[in-house]
């Protein structure tokens, strides 16, 4: 590349231009705020300000808190939230609103209670061996420089809204990283976060003060361009939703997307020879949590073809159905019900339906696994088991999909070690055992350490002793 005399041109070539275009861009106010948009103020639906970004409070009060103060305060608030969700009235409303069964909602509430544990909250701040709270609270000496981690500031979190438990996770991350947030409620669930708002308004503290909750119809371009020029944008949704948000994002806003993900089971020969009730129940649980609408939900099974495969799948089908007695299914949308019926009918007509037609859960088998098999899935307690000659080859096929979150290995220990290195070459971010699909500990999500993503690392490189 030749140097030009025009500095702007040179900068453009090397660094994308010497003008800071986003300053003007980020100052733009929307000409039009949709009529259906609102923000919650003291339990009431209020209009967004003319400049929607101004609805967000500064995060200073939160940033001043120590981790101990923050965790203690937040733990209490999460417990109150769980308690409020559990009232008979709210259970009824949540079931009606979300389509989840009461069993599913109870499990979500237990999860929130579990996450309110102070030690567990603190552990979100651990990134490998690094305790992020030490960097958040002070400058730490590194090799030849000092380093600290500052909150990004203000941001927006676009919720997906298919699960009550999932709503609280981004709230935990933003609190621990000391950022202000505007949570956007999804159009199909404007209740779960309203309950959180009603709990928070009883608290006069920095966590409650820095949390705003609102709604606007998705795709409101001008409003979203305004809000997506905040310091950060976190978003949950399918690939097209994420792509749409990316298209409206200010070039300087930090984007933290969580797109559609799924898990894949791998069942080896030995497991099919020596399985017990507990293993089957763990598999059934993994395929049942949240009706398979969660990012860790297994949506496909790879099973080594053996003489025992038929029996194993029949037993699994029985266990899947049995588990609905403890963990009832939610409402299946009509369109998905039709898709499942069609797939079941094709399987039945082709001799591949393992479960009984009248079951609420489905287990079907298919010979082999092709790329097209991992392009479309069914949820709502649906197991599609691919009988394969080579687990390694099938693992490659599933592992080539970027949306893969984890492999769940129902295998011998020896086989697990063999497959682990092979899995490293795929897009999987987790390797777990049966029953371990839902993350029990704070772990990277979508390959990210989320609290770290919400921090800005700053270095002091001046000479020091």
């Amino acid at each position, binding site marked *: 590349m030749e140097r030009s005399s025009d500095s702007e041109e040179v900068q453009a070539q090397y660094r994308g231009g010497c003008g800071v275009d986003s300053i003007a861009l980020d100052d733009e106010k929307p000409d039009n705020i949709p009529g259906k948009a609102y923000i919650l103020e003291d339990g009431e639906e209020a209009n967004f300000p003319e400049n929607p970004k101004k609805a967000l409070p500064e995060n200073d009060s939160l940033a001043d808190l120590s981790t101990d103060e923050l965790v203690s305060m937040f733990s209490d608030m999460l417990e109150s939230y769980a308690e409020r969700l559990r009232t008979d009235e709210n259970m009824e409303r949540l079931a009606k609103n979300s389509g989840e069964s009461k069993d599913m909602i109870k499990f979500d509430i237990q999860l929130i209670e579990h996450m309110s544990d102070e030690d567990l909250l603190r552990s979100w701040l651990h990134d490998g061996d690094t305790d992020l709270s030490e960097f958040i609270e002070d400058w730490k000496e590194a090799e030849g420089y000092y380093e600290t981690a500052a909150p990004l500031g203000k941001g927006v979190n676009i919720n997906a809204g298919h699960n009550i438990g999932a709503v609280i996770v981004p709230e935990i991350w933003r609190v621990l990283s000391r950022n202000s947030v505007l949570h956007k409620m999804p159009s199909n669930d404007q209740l779960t976060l309203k309950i959180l708002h009603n709990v928070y308004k009883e608290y006069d503290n920095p966590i409650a003060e820095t949390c705003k909750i609102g709604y606007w119809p998705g795709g409101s371009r001008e409003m979203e361009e305004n809000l997506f020029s905040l310091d950060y944008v976190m978003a949950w949704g399918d690939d097209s939703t994420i792509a749409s948000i990316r298209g409206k994002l200010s070039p300087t806003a930090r984007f933290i997307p969580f797109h559609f993900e799924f898990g894949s089971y791998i069942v080896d020969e030995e497991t099919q020879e020596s399985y017990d009730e507990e293993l089957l129940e763990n598999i059934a649980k993994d395929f049942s949590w949240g009706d398979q609408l969660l990012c860790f939900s297994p949506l496909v099974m790879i099973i080594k073809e053996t003489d025992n495969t038929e029996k194993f799948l029949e037993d699994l089908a029985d266990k899947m159905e049995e588990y609905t007695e403890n963990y009832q299914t939610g409402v299946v949308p*009509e*369109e998905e*019900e*039709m*898709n499942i*019926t*069609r797939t*079941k*009918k*094709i399987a*039945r*007509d*082709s*001799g591949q339906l393992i479960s009984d*037609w009248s079951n609420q859960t489905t287990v079907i088998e298919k010979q082999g696994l092709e790329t*097209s098999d991992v392009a479309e899935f069914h949820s709502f307690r649906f197991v599609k088991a691919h009988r394969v000659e080579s687990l390694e080859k099938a693992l490659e096929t599933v592992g080539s999909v970027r949306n893969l979150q984890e492999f769940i290995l129902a295998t011998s220990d020896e086989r697990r070690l063999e497959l682990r290195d092979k899995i490293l070459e795929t897009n999987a971010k987790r390797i777990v055992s049966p029953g371990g699909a839902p993350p029990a500990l704070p772990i990277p999500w979508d390959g990210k350490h989320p609290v770290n993503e919400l921090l800005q690392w700053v270095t002091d490189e001046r000479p020091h002793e």
Partner: protein
Amino acid sequence: MGKIDSLRELGSKEHDKELFFEALNQAIDQWEKNNLYSQRMEASHAPEEIESFEDIKKLPTVDMREFKDHPKDLTIGNVDREYALFSSGTTSDSKSFTLRSEEGYDRHKGNFKDFADFLMPDLDFMHIMGPGKKMLEKMPEKEAKRAVFTYPLWIFDKFDNEFYLEKTEEGMSPDVDSMIENIKTKEGSQGVFSTPNNLYKVAKKLDEKGVTVDLGPEGLVVTAGGWKGASGSNKEEFRELLQTVFGIDIENHLDFYGCTEIFFPTGNHYGDENPDKKRIPPMGYIWVADEEKFRKEGVLEPVENGEPGLLVSVDPSNTDYPGVLLTDDIVKKTGGEYGKDVRFEYVGRSSL
């Protein structure tokens, strides 16, 4: 294929119920050569001989989506990729295709030509917003096959015609200016063909510019395919636009309904009052299944006449794969007398 060919030789003007059953029984013998369908026939309660329309409703079906999952498992005899037909993608996944034998391809083509001839008036010129042979020849084979459905090439070759689709950096785009200029210079009755979504966009632009054209005494607008991509449009507005821009009455709008998996087309006759009410040619039959019953119980049962439900097509002229297809389209069927007043109307989609 004696009876099947006899059925086709009927043409589109008259229906013959007995001949249809004979042809269907002959076709079923062929379909049972497919292992998958043979197993389904065994497991079904379908009679060995089809003697009534009630019998037809007991025949096992093939789900349209099976063509995407395992198209090769559904074929019978010597099908060849050479004769594959690709979906246009106007209503669903453009990647889907169905394989054909040479004989099947010719029959499919013959059915379309014959029925289109019956439905359309004589025209002096046809303007086609689709890729012509010259353009398709320039494109890579795979891309060309998927570029657009093949039917316009079959059914409009009897008229003098011109194709107006160009490949630009943004994709396929009709050369509307050339078409308008040509319409103005031609005499007699002219026709314009496009997919509804394309034609909607074109008509809207022309209307905004205040452009109107005269297609002549028996001027015709022909559409086929779905509405996907035509966001913000609705049928009533579309029809009004056609009347304004092309100066045609609603009776001069001919709309085909079909898909690559079914060998017979359906459509309204030129002059029919309502383009949404489609006729069924003598070589095909459709019945309508209760959508909710199927969704809940997986059982296909007919609905009352006039009630909406899932369209099942029965297609004896197709012997390349089993021709009893369960679609995911919701339709309403009206009229009672076979071949006379029976019509059906597309209502929507059940899934996908």
